């Protein structure tokens, strides 16, 4: 798409008309065009003949939300402009003749009504748009530039304006704006030439403000025939007011379950009022409302509800119409030029327009007459009438043999590099066709039309029902396999296809709802994520599906509302999910942990921050404190790294006196609570989080021991804190700190297992040494290490699970830690297997429940022998390389040790005599190597540290017989 190439998008509708749920209506002055706006944001132009035949001409795209109102925007007929406004505050100016969008603007609040107003200054005529909506003023907007010029504001109880009308005076230069607020107060502003001319001056205040008790007013309209009355329509009644002093002339209540939604004067003495369900009634006004009558104003001041005026015509809803999903829109227009039609126009949710020509004469009978519809057409009918039918891209393939209805295309993607078009259809099949050939068949007329048969194509069958999205990831980024095509369906599945062979490679069934979107993650994500596609489903879940690993590496569910937007913070490994209710969920892609869930300003800021190309630190280094704060609040690791690199010497924030980031982080973690830095503040939590995630970066600069102890301190009570919180967010600050610290600890441990193990082991040794030497102890149970025992065991457990190789390298240290963390008495009672099953997986760990001893084979070839009762440890040296397996004889008399490195098996006699175990409790057991055998070495199945862990094990079959069982099943039997 680069260079000077012009890319012209073409839309092929196919035989099915797009949905057009009409939300607003307009007929242009010369009655040549009807304009409809729909709930999806499109605008349709319909041509209308003087005979009232209507035919849709163009579909205008420009809004992102439901159209709330339409208005003309030019007075002259040679250039017909209209303006449209949407729910999201957008305003577009369109040329009706060619459908161009001339001007676009967006305000923070939505307009619900726009009226065009033209005034002349000498010979010059200028157009203004008077807008009202979800704000307490009337904005006066220039009709050509869409700029807000000034506003009409209220002094007395200002509130949203629900309806407005402009009263033009032919006598003076002053025109009047009459509006009714949502609380039922009538407001009057005078627009004089001076007011119209001024720009950006003080606001214009109202001339009059009068409560008329019309809450929930739908329309207020001025009688252009008599110039002296106003019609106000509310849901439950309609009223006529004197346009001079706004006194009530008559009031008519609606029938039981009818709700009026609008009305208009159609003659000096007649009004048409319509209801929510699409019925309309034409009434003759009582004499008290007619200025020409001698009874005019005769009822003013009388409170009695006037009797219902005579109904002369009625229009009921069509009986044959389709089911509607929301109330139709009705408007009345009358032509000021030939052919002077008085038209009632109605548009409904099925995209149908109906017209009634309202006669000027009264029917001869006195009873109300049913007015017949003059003309009606729906978008679909118009599509059906077309000859030839509107083309779809694979029409020739869409009608199944023997079928009637064509199968709709529900998703498509064009692959320019292969010239292929992929169409997912509502029956679950996916069709691949050569794009150009297909387009020629569909769009051009010629010889080829005579040839029968379908263009070459391939059908992929796999989805059970409608295909909702197709994605060809290679086209978005070359890092993906060019064979992979991904499709999602209503059947909750995501299927990966080989686009060349048509083979189904994999089905992901991870979601619990229809797949609504498939997205390619951005370039700079982690390598693992780079080979994923992101799937969004209607059960409000998001998944990262790895095409390479063929598994779902992350599933983020728990969102309460539909997902509206997915954003990425690759540098921080974050997936940001914006939901339809405005809440934002931040997920860590690697771990699948929900980092946080926020609403309000923070949510908006997080979403906006994702759009920034560079992280915060790049710009404005003049305020490092602010930057740091921002980076912290957004938890942008990249931004912080960036700042650390910039060697910010002055972190102006008064709580940070350190000279570089890592010190600051340690400082934030370890600084005792103070009024300026409370124990569980966000900034502290953020520091914890950052320490965890960036440990490999900070490690060289940190006192690892202090950091780990600090983190352990914070999560020492995690169990207690987090036990009460089952799944509800937000957490209370201490619980949140504990959670963060716990997470950071796991991250550090898994990122640098040796650092974690040696540090904690050192702490344990230090503690044990202190315990042994000093008599005056600090309370053992309050020290951090003691309180965090569960937490340490949890991390050790994770390490054994995730990085067994690292654990084996430091197995003795790990056992030291475990011995410290688990009560000896408990091990004695229940056995090691029950107390800490994970460690027993290793063949180099053995436990004897007779003698309560634990043997641990180390990498250096020594075996550490622990006595559970005393906690003492003794080393035996007998092998020249890493120990492969150890095992106690069932009676505890012998210990067999085997090292694959030196290919020897040794037997050690344990002193477990009655005398030894009772009388010499405190002395170390006497150990003697009684036998050594040479064994042929066992070859690992394949290289890799994991395989070395499970090379061979020792199994005692009796008190004196042992089998050395290799991983490949080979056995060697030995006897002591």
């Amino acid at each position, binding site marked *: 798409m680069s260079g000077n190439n012009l890319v012209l998008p073409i839309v092929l509708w196919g035989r099915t008309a797009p949905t057009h749920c009409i939300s607003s209506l307009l007929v242009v002055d010369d009655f040549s065009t009807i304009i409809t706006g729909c709930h999806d944001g499109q605008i349709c132009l319909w041509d209308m003949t003087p005979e009232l035949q209507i035919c849709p001409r163009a579909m205008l795209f420009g809004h992102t939300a439901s159209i709330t109102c339409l208005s003309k925007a030019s007075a002259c007929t040679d250039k017909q402009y209209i303006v449209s406004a949407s729910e999201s505050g957008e305003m577009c100016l369109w040329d009706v003749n060619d459908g161009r969008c001339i001007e676009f603007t967006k305000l923070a609040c939505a307009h619900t009504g726009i009226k065009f107003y033209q005034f002349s200054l000498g010979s010059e005529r200028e157009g203004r748009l008077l807008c009202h909506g979800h704000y307490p003023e009337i904005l006066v907007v220039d009709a050509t530039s869409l700029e807000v010029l000034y506003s009409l504001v209220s002094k007395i109880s200002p509130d949203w304006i629900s309806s407005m009308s402009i009263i033009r005076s032919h006598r003076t230069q002053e025109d009047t704006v009459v509006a009714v607020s*949502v609380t039922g107060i009538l407001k009057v502003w005078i627009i004089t030439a001076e007011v119209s001319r001024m720009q950006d001056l003080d606001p214009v205040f109202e001339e009059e403000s009068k409560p008329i008790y019309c809450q929930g007013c739908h329309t207020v309209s001025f009688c252009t025939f008599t110039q002296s009355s106003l019609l106000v329509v509310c849901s439950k009644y309609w009223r006529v007011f004197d346009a001079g002093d706004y006194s009530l002339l008559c009031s008519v209540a609606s029938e039981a379950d009818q*709700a009026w939604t609008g009305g208009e004067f159609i003659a000096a003495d007649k009004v048409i009022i319509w209801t929510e369900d699409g019925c309309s009634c034409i009434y003759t006004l009582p004499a008290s409302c007619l200025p020409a009558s001698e009874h005019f104003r005769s009822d003013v001041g009388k409170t009695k509800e006037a009797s219902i005026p005579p109904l002369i015509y009625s229009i009921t809803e069509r009986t044959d119409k389709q089911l509607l999903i929301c109330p139709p829109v009705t408007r009345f227009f009358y032509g000021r030029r030939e052919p002077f039609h008085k038209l009632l126009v109605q548009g409904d949710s099925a995209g149908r327009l109906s017209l009634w020509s309202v006669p000027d004469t009264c029917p001869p009978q006195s009873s109300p007459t049913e007015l017949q519809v003059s003309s009606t057409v729906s978008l679909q009918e118009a599509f059906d009438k077309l000859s030839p039918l509107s083309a779809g891209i694979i029409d020739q393939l869409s009608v199944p043999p023997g079928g009637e209805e064509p199968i709709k295309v529900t998703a498509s993607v064009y692959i320019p590099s292969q010239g292929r078009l992929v169409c997912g259809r509502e029956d679950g099949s996916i069709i691949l066709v050569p794009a150009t050939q297909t387009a020629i068949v569909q769009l051009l007329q010629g010889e080829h039309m005579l040839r029968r048969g379908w263009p070459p194509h391939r059908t992929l069958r796999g989805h*059970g029902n409608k295909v909702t999205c197709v994605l060809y990831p290679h086209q978005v980024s070359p890092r993906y396999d060019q064979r992979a095509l991904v499709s999602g369906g209503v059947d909750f599945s995501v299927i990966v296809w080989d686009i060349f062979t048509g083979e189904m490679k994999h089905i992901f069934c991870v979601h619990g709802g229809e797949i609504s979107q498939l997205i390619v993650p951005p370039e700079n994500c982690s390598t693992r994520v780079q080979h994923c596609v992101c799937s969004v489903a209607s059960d409000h879940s998001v998944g990262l599906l790895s095409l390479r690993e063929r598994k779902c590496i992350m599933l983020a569910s728990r969102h309460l*509302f539909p997902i509206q937007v997915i954003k990425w913070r690759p540098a921080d490994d974050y997936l940001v999910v914006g939901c339809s209710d405005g809440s934002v969920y931040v997920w860590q892609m690697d771990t699948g942990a929900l980092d946080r869930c926020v609403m*309000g300003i923070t949510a908006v800021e997080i979403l906006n921050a994702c759009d920034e190309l560079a992280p915060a630190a790049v710009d*404005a280094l003049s305020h490092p404190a602010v930057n740091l704060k921002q980076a912290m609040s957004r938890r942008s690791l990249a931004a912080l790294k960036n700042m650390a690199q910039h060697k910010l010497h002055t972190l102006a924030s008064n709580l940070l006196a350190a000279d570089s980031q890592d010190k600051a982080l340690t400082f934030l973690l370890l600084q005792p609570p103070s009024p300026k830095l409370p124990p569980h503040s966000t900034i502290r939590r953020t520091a914890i989080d950052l320490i965890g995630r960036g440990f490999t970066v900070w490690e060289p600069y940190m006192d690892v021991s202090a950091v780990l102890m600090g983190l352990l301190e914070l999560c020492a009570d995690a169990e207690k804190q987090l036990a009460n919180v089952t799944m509800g967010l937000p957490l209370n600050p201490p619980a949140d700190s504990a959670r963060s610290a716990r997470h950071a600890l796991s991250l550090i441990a898994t990122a640098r297992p040796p650092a974690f193990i040696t540090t904690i082991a050192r702490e344990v040794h230090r503690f044990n040494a202190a315990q042994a030497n000093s008599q005056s102890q600090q309370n053992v149970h309050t020290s951090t290490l003691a309180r965090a025992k569960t937490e340490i065991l949890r991390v050790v457990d994770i390490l054994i699970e995730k990085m067994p190789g690292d654990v084996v390298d430091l197995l003795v240290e790990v056992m030291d830690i475990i011995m410290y963390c688990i009560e000896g008495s408990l091990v004695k009672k229940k056995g090691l297997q029950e107390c800490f099953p994970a460690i027993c997986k290793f063949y180099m760990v053995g436990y004897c429940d007779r003698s309560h001893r634990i043997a641990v084979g180390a990498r250096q070839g020594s075996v550490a022998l622990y006595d559970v009762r005393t906690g003492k440890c003794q080393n035996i040296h007998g092998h020249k390389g890493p120990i492969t397996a150890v095992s106690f004889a069932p009676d505890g008399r012998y210990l067999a040790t085997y090292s694959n490195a030196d290919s020897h098996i040794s037997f050690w006699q344990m002193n477990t005599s009655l005398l030894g175990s009772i009388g010499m409790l405190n002395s170390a057991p006497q150990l003697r190597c009684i036998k050594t055998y040479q064994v042929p070495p066992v070859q690992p199945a394949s290289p890799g540290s994991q395989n070395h862990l499970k090379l061979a094990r020792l199994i005692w079959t009796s008190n004196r017989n042992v089998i050395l069982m290799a991983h490949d099943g080979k056995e060697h039997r030995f006897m002591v």
Partner: protein
Amino acid sequence: MLNPQRSLSELPKMSAANQVERAVMEEEFNWLLKEEVHSVLKQLQDILKEASRRFSMPTTGLDGQVKQENFILGSTTMDQVKGVLTLQGEALTQADINLKVSKSSQVLHFQFRDDKQWKLQQIQDARNHVNQALQLLSSRDESYHFKTGAEVNKLMDAVMLQLTRARNRLTTPATMTLPELATSGLMKMFSPPMPGDVMVNFYINLSKLCLAVYQLHVLQPNTTKNFKPAGSSVLHNPGSTFELNNNRFEVSHVHKVECVVPWLNDTLVFFTISLQLCQQLKDKISVFSSLWNYRPF
């Protein structure tokens, strides 16, 4: 409920069992449209009426009936700003602001002029949105028979749009530029008049009534510091600069104090519950979407 695995593997062969299941689902769907929808709508109406009541809609002509509430903002000794605000419905009718100027240890005192009050547009907007949602709901009472799921979805979308707006108005205060703030009518509300180097702003953030006070100093025209006017923000940071009437200012101090308005908290809870109810109803309807869109292939 629909089972993904099953719908995937068994749909092609539409068996008798499937037919039975369809019939059951159809019955369940009819129950949903006839009974469940109305019970949810009723619940929604009750909750939203409660929310609307909290806003104590001022009845015209009877303004005296709206309760006055006093809020004290910034009560700790560390706060340099202290404010006592009187909220009456959606308007601040009285305000007393004390500002301790740090360098001179002088205390500035301002209050609203007697003839002035400040309307909190956020509250009015939230109130209007919730009333619009109520209006939408009241048009579909028990006598109305919903015929399609799409119809219910459409109604829920419209209601949720209003409720989301109502909530957003309270949770996301309007962002303003500093010149907008300086020229806003709020600066002219005080007696004694606010000095040129102090600006205030009131807004609602979630359930809190917030008062922000900015102290400014004039930047010398010849200063070498590169001048970059600050954009729109809810709360500006110290160091933000702006230009007004050919003078350049820098914000030297920012003080923000706040106080929870209990009834606003209630309304936020009501909004959240209602939104969840709406979404749950939509989710229930969507379970049957395959039913009403169903075409055997």
